[in-house]
């Protein structure tokens, strides 16, 4: 097996890229995608450690995270569609009213 440190490096790299995407992009859809990247980084860590200690429980948590990602994507994309219908934009900094 590749040393566990490399998996952590990969995971941190994906996490950092995801954070950059979430903080800097204006497009809400790409922000959501960056969140998926972050969740994915977590999954890599969980599965790598599950392999290291020889227990599948880490994979169980990864499955829960994927479930969570599905729920988050469904609600997030629903919000985006609703917002786009009302404001004709998907840019995060133009979502500046609390009610319409």
């Amino acid at each position: 097996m590749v040393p566990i440190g490399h998996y952590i490096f990969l995971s941190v790299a994906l996490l950092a890229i995801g954070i950059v995407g979430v903080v800097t992009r204006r497009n809400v859809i790409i922000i959501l995608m960056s969140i998926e990247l972050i969740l994915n980084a977590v999954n890599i860590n969980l599965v790598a450690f599950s392999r290291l200690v020889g227990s599948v429980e880490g994979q169980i948590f990864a499955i829960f995270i994927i479930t969570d990602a599905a729920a988050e994507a469904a609600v997030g994309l629903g919000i985006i569609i609703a917002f786009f219908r009302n404001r004709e934009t998907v840019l995060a900094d133009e979502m500046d009213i609390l009610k319409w």
Partner: protein
Amino acid sequence: MLDQVVFYFFAALAIVSAILVVTRRNAVQSAIFLVTALLATAGIFLNLNAEFLFIVQVILYAGGIMVLFIFVIMLVNLDVALHQVQFNRQWFVALIISAVLAAQVAAAIAVSRRTLYTMPAAPAESLQPNTERVAFYLFHTYVLPFEIASILLLVAMVGAVVMAKKRV
């Protein structure tokens, strides 16, 4: 040997496509590269003897969630957004934050590298048969979280329908 080649290949693929996800101007291209990154991660899972998680990643993430993403991207017409500024003014702060984060983790790894690089991995057989073991843990030890996850999905489904429907 083959193990390592596969890992480094997929790791490089994942990182490159992740960078492209956050830098592409066009959201569809971002989505394509996100699919690539997710599939590369799936390959890493396979390399880690997590066959079931590999296929869950492919079916659910790449085949399900990403189709949803692309569907929504095509539904919301992005031709206008394409010509606007794609990054906000915080990009410099964001780079610093993530660099600091990466440096912190790198430092942590460097400090504990003796254990991290020499820790012996458990034998691969301890994860086999993978699907049966995952099922056992999912439906015995973690059956309550499993049920809660199902309720979470129900809530998300209702929420998405309420959100996206024009008249409820």
